[in-house]
């Protein structure tokens, strides 16, 4: 499930197009529906998709971040800050604040990642103004109690320590470190290898500095969708965000470059199932996001669901796995890497590994068949269309579009292209030219390295870091 998120997050352009179409098909009485875009009186950039057929209204918002990653030793500051921000307000402690939201059917969530911090607010249409006021409270008058901070530190520490013992997470973290070890976004992405002591040093001064630098109006984008009016949305946005400082103070985005490490690393652990993780840096960078639907279609055909190549090869034919996944997550909001994962029967692991490598090679060389292409395209577009008619997902998709600095008005022409004119050859060329070449970096967590042709083995009582550097 986790691996689906970056995929869905990434195909913003296609979704924006679908939004336009979805909205148009749902309108009443043939009135043309448009996505309203503009700036609020307080200068916040916004977009709004009216959905009179929806039962809620949703706001999704995003700031540029990357503040913590520019400060060595503070890489987890963003994550800690976002969690602390939600731990109650000056008016009410955390529990009471959350219960008050629950009474009013208001949902408020924050998150951070990929050089952004953001969140979402969902409410019944008649409670939009109240919801905006609650969001304002969180942003402007958070409680920031020391007790909550101590609790958050302990929770983070506990989660990170446990993640290191989870075979799939450990393998994935190792892979990311091998591919992008120089990136300051590694602690955020590779949850199993975080330096816990760094998080201990973070406190109120660092969090206040983060708030001042990041939570400002100039780098904020807000997208709304649902049953409301543009006037009400604009008022809600300025109510929630209008008191934030005007100017952010962000560092320049760091460069993310991938290393090519073609080794196979096996981490021996007493596990009952072998975790295979293969990957490599792609040449897809932030500027390529408009082409992400091509990768979306290809990933769908390669590893998503029962019709995919990996399902047929590893589960249907070998019976070695319950399922396999593939994704192209973004690191640091800068570049994408391929990651293919499968948890397999240890007895079949060498065979499954060979099959995955062979299938990837064949897929990259030969591309999708006509049948695969049509099915994957339809699946992707239909699924997104279903999501886009709901206020929450629709607002998130619009927000991501704004984050890219795109204009939704270009949507219909591109949709037409994707639905009717996009060719299989375009997708296949994209895979061939932009996805990583073989051999892929391979990290395996297995009961034994035997038969897996490892270049580096981490024995049971050794730390995985011993294989991070090529020997």
């Amino acid at each position, binding site marked *: 499930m986790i691996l689906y998120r970056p995929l869905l997050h990434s195909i913003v352009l296609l979704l924006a197009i679908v939004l336009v179409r979805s909205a148009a098909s749902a309108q009443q009485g043939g009135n043309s529906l448009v996505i309203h875009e503009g700036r609020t009186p307080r200068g916040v950039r916004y977009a709004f998709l009216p959905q009179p*057929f929806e039962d809620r209204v949703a706001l999704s918002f995003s700031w540029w971040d990357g503040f913590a990653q520019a400060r060595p030793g503070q890489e987890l500051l963003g994550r800690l800050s976002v969690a602390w921000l939600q731990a109650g307000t000056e008016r009410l402690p955390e529990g009471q604040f959350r219960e008050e939201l629950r009474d009013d059917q208001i949902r408020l969530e924050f998150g951070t990642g990929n050089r952004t911090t953001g969140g979402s607010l969902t409410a019944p249409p008649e409670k939009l103004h109240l919801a905006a006021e609650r969001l304002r409270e969180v942003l402007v008058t958070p409680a920031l109690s020391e007790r909550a901070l101590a609790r958050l530190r302990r929770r983070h520490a506990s989660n990170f320590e446990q993640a290191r013992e989870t075979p799939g997470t450990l393998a994935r973290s190792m892979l990311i470190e091998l591919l992008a070890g120089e990136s300051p976004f590694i602690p955020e992405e590779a949850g199993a290898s975080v330096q816990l002591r760094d998080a201990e040093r973070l406190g109120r001064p660092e969090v206040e500095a983060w708030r001042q630098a990041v939570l400002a109006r100039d780098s904020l984008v807000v997208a709304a969708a649902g049953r409301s009016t543009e006037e009400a949305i604009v008022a809600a946005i300025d109510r929630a965000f209008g008191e934030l400082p005007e100017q952010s103070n962000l560092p320049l985005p760091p460069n993310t470059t991938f290393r090519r490490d073609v080794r196979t690393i096996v981490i021996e652990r007493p596990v009952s199932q072998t975790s295979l993780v293969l990957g490599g840096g792609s040449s897809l960078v932030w500027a390529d996001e408009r082409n992400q639907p091509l990768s979306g279609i290809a990933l769908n055909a390669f590893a998503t669901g029962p019709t995919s190549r990996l399902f047929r090869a590893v589960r249907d034919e070998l019976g070695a796995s319950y399922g396999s996944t593939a994704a192209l997550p973004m690191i640091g909001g800068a570049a994408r890497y391929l990651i293919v994962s499968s948890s397999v029967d240890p007895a079949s692991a060498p065979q499954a590994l060979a099959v995955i490598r062979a299938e990837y090679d064949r897929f990259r060389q030969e591309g999708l068949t006509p049948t695969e292409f049509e099915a994957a395209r339809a699946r992707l577009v239909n699924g997104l269309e279903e999501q886009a008619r709901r206020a929450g997902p629709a607002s998130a998709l619009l927000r991501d579009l704004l984050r890219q600095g795109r204009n939704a008005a270009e949507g219909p022409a591109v949709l037409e292209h994707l639905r009717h004119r996009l060719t299989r050859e375009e997708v296949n060329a994209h895979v061939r030219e932009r996805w990583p070449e073989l051999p892929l970096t391979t990290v395996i967590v297995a009961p034994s390295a035997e038969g897996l042709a490892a270049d580096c083995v981490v024995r049971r009582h050794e730390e995985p870091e011993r294989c991070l550097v090529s020997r």
Partner: protein
Amino acid sequence: VSHPWLAVILGVLLTAPPTLAQEPADPTSPISPLAMNLRPAEFRISDRVILVRDERMVQTHFTLVVHAGCLDEEPDCRGVAHYLEHLLLVGRNPDHTESAFRFFSDGYANGWTSHKATAFTHRIAPRRLEQGGPMADLERLFAFYANRLRSFEVSAADALRERNVVLQEYQLRTGNNPFGRFGVQLEQVLLPHHSLGQSVIGSPDTIPALTLEEAQHFHARWYVPDNITVVVAGNLDPEAVRAVTARTFGAVEARTLPPRAGREAPGIEPGRFSLTVTDAQVKRRTVRYTKLVRIPEETRNIRNARLLLANFLASQLAGSPNDVLVEGQSVTDGISAGVIRHLPGLYRIWLSAEPTPDTSPEQLAEAMRSYLDGLASRGGFDTTTLERLKRRFAADVAMANLSGERIMNRVVDWVANGDPYDSLADFPLRVAAVTPDDVTRLLTLLAGPGRELTGILLPETTAERRVP
């Protein structure tokens, strides 16, 4: 209830069909209540088929619930029902030579099995009218499952391979997960002689021993027309669904269901047990307190009070486990809790948390026990809190009534739990009628004799554990 008439009016409003749940609206206004013609509605197509019509839905959703799960295995639960779910999806019929997983290449398909039911779900992509529209696809799916009720075929090789897939599913979810393994151990101590204490999927001991013949036998007993419910949702014409139902499921010959011996609530041997487990794959200490109690359901409101009590236990309201144990006593940084009705007359209340660094697992376990005792002795929560919980539930129901998908999920959950579809309609009314006395009675019973288990899961080397 401070205002009984309010509960009645609220209940009547909530139990009306979703199409009548709100005032008529002006559909041209973007912020007025959802237009009447856009609100979903439920239709009983036949004894076994329910339609949720929502004109706003783009895709068509299909779920077939077979009212047979791991509790219906004989002599006990070993994973046969779940294995059959896999075989039914990968097996072939003469009229369909491809795996049902790939029934619609541009759609979605899956299955799930619980102690009480097995379900098969499909999501069908929108189809243009010249392609036959949604009903053509739905008829294919109905015909496919009608045939699956008659028989299914799977080769011995496919069955053997799929058995290993099941084993890998077990390893993925449980075997390779220390918290999952711990949960299995706790259940076996809590319910040692009943299928409720066994994992639906089976175990590394039972899965390799599953046979195709066992699955076929289970199929012959339980996959019969009178033992299924089909729930479909989408922009569908009820008459068209009725006609397709008659042509497909209506043509399947009825068979007699065997007695359901596994659905009897087991006798509970009262006592206080503890289980401490160390695991090298674990880095955090976990305490789970569970208590099983037999509760006579002399009035239905005991059952409905459970829902509100469960919502309270999961909340951060004053007097909740979070309020008392996290904020008040600081024995943990976060807690989950709930109360479940397994079978008629069999209830479980539980709490699960990690102790704070200054708290021992035993201290946390004792704090959990004391909390529950205190809650019962106080009579539960006050009237204000009860009314607050009821208002929230009513608001959730009203909101769910505006979404075809949420109505569909509610119906599927309801019938898969073994409850008759017709009893769903007045469920909100029954919840609205729950009184403080009902909650007190339930808590008193939960505090009575039962089978208590305190489970503690520890890292293998606790002394070396790093806590900042």
